[in-house]
């Protein structure tokens, strides 16, 4: 019985991972790509994306779900890169300058984001998602109208012909793969950007260390139960802001690493899909909205990108249309996020129902507790009553 239950639990816990492995393995054949090509691509993409995905971890520890507002940090990184290019600083020094410019911006945005999320407890994910769009509007305003008019730009080759605003596509030639190429390790047919991986490893060590600090422990306590943490004297709101702040700064660095590898940047929409890819990756890796670990990040990046590498060609060869593969992989990305969120919400609801039932079956004298429990479980509902009454 318990073995059967264990297997069932394994499948329900890792359903997404299993589906993904199967899909990818079956697509490798029809795609016609060689294994060594796929491995090289995965190594490149691990270096490119892991840092961004790692930036999602802390908010999950703090119980704030997937930080879809990590895009804010990505935008800060892009602003940094634009200035680095404008000032004509090449090589890895350019990336450092980009980070130094992006750092204060990402700190500011992260603080704003934390404040906003504290005003929207219990719905951080959707709020973060919208906040990203909102700040994206502000970013466009800044880059399209302020840069070059209010803030002087030196390099005329990156401004629009009208004199202000930055061009749609920014060529990052001077910093292209500046980080990856410092030490490019060759092992057999594969080349590995060593410094990039060292930086990612340092971040992993930092996260492991951070979890053990007082702040890290507080964060987990807040993630478990805000009310209990508050009662234990943990500054809940401040801890949550710190989690988002660190996540935003990490996303800023992550986006700089991402873009230096890509080599050029779509100024106005390079950040559009950042949070989508990061969220899909961590969820594919077996994380949920409440639990995530460093292995989830790497498994996720490998699986998601293996899928992304093979699916367009598999679609081309199986259905005669590359677009089908393209749409299919996007569907898989969104679908994975949807399924993970559904599974999580479903489990949470089942657990809540189970505790409720347990209480109900208990002594009759406990009926008041049941009622109280029911009320807290239906926070949305009672809030609805409040507003309805207020506006009448």
């Amino acid at each position, binding site marked *: 019985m318990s073995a059967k239950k264990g297997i069932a639990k394994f499948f329900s816990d890792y359903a997404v991972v299993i589906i993904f492995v199967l899909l990818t393995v079956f697509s490798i054949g029809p795609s016609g790509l060689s294994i060594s090509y796929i491995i090289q691509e995965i190594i490149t993409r691990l270096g490119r994306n892991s840092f961004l995905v790692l930036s999602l971890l802390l908010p999950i520890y703090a119980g704030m779900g997937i930080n879809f507002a990590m895009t804010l940090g990505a935008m800060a990184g892009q602003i940094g890169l634009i200035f680095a290019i404008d000032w004509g600083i090449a090589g890895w020094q350019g990336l450092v300058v980009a980070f130094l410019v992006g750092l204060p911006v990402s700190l500011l945005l992260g603080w704003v984001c934390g404040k906003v999320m504290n005003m929207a407890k219990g719905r951080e994910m959707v709020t973060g998602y919208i906040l990203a769009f909102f700040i994206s509007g502000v970013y466009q305003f800044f880059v399209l109208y302020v840069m070059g008019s209010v803030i002087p730009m030196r390099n005329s080759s990156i401004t629009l012909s009208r004199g202000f605003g930055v061009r749609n596509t920014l060529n990052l030639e001077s910093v292209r793969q500046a980080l990856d190429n410092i030490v490019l390790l060759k092992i057999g047919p594969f080349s590995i950007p060593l410094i990039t991986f060292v930086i990612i490893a340092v971040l992993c060590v930092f996260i492991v260390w951070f979890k053990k600090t007082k702040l890290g422990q507080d964060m987990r306590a807040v993630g478990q139960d805000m009310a209990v943490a508050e009662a234990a004297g943990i500054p809940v709101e401040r801890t949550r802001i710190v989690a988002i702040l660190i996540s935003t700064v990490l996303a800023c660095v992550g986006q700089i690493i991402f873009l230096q590898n890509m080599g050029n940047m779509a100024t106005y929409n390079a950040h559009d899909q950042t949070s989508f890819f990061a969220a899909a990756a961590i969820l594919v890796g077996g994380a949920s909205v409440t639990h995530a670990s460093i292995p989830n990040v790497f498994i996720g990046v490998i699986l998601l990108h293996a899928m992304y590498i093979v699916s367009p060609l598999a679609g081309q060869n199986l259905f005669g249309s590359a677009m089908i593969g393209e749409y299919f992989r996007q569907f898989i990305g969104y679908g994975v996020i949807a399924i993970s969120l559904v599974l999580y919400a479903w489990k949470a609801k089942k657990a809540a129902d189970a505790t409720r039932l347990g209480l109900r079956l208990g002594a009759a004298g406990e009926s008041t507790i049941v009622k109280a429990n029911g009320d807290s479980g239906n926070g949305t509902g*009672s809030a609805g009553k409040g507003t309805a009454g207020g506006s009448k």
Partner: protein
Amino acid sequence: MRDIKTSIQDFGWPRIIIFIFLIVLFILAPIVGVRLDASISDVLNRFGQYAILVLALVPMIQSGCGLNFGLALGIVAGLLGSTLSLQFEWRGFMGFFGAIALSLPFSIIFGYIYGKLLNKVKGEEMTIGMYVGLSFVMIMCIMWLVLPYSNPQMVWGFAGKGLRTTISTEGYWFKILNNFLAVKIGQFFVFPTGLLLFVAICCYLVWLFMRSRTGTAMTAVGSNPDFARASGVNADKMRTISVIMSTFLGAVGIIVYEQSFGFIQLYTAPNPMVFPAIAAILIGGASVNKASMVNVVIGTFLFQGLLTMTPSVINSILQTDMSEVIRMIVSNGIILYALTRKAKVTK
């Protein structure tokens, strides 16, 4: 004095700012050389074009499912209806109402499944709705490529299969509502009677439904699920009905939009339709769990007015197109405002 203060607080500062901004734009328009009559005609037209998509959000807000970020499902149902209507070469009112009728079964199927799903994930409807919508639109992208449509006006010329990204409704039911009983005053002003009439009828029907037995039960579920359950209302059933309604209204909304706009937009086009609708109803004064017809009408008018007037007026003043940026900041700002405001009430 206190009454004014509380009523302002109830109405919300963002709405007041947007309202004043719109009035300023209307005053500025003639000064900077934008024709006022043409602008008003434009605003009315766009109001009618979007109103039903906004109306589609009402049932789910009332039943406590929150803002329907998965409205794309309804839009896809509408797209299926309208493309089928074109495939059968139905023209005129037959084509328009045929499209609505054909979208009904799809709306019911999609809405039913979507509703069942949302019942399992109470409290997370909005985030999940968003991703369900996004992934469904992606499946449909594949479907548009492989479904056996054959009307040469709709499929890619060279391949002979796979639908085009935009399909013209010209010659079928283009502006069928707009031109119905339309009143033309002067060279620039057209009053789209048929369109506004249709919107009014839809609003009235939804209003009527909300006052019916089922509608009241639905509102009860949204206001207080425990109380509703105690009074013998099946909460899950009510929520599912509201989702189906919302999906169907979304389908009708997109068909009305297409007849006025002139094109059926397929593939990823449904995605960017959702946020403006949500922003509009929130500007109109709705919250995450309470909405009325007044919110729909005021909100659509304010939001579409803003979208119509900002490009023409601001562009004439600044000689540059800032409308996209303003649209992004206003529409997302207002959604953000609504999402953060409710938490304060809870406190």
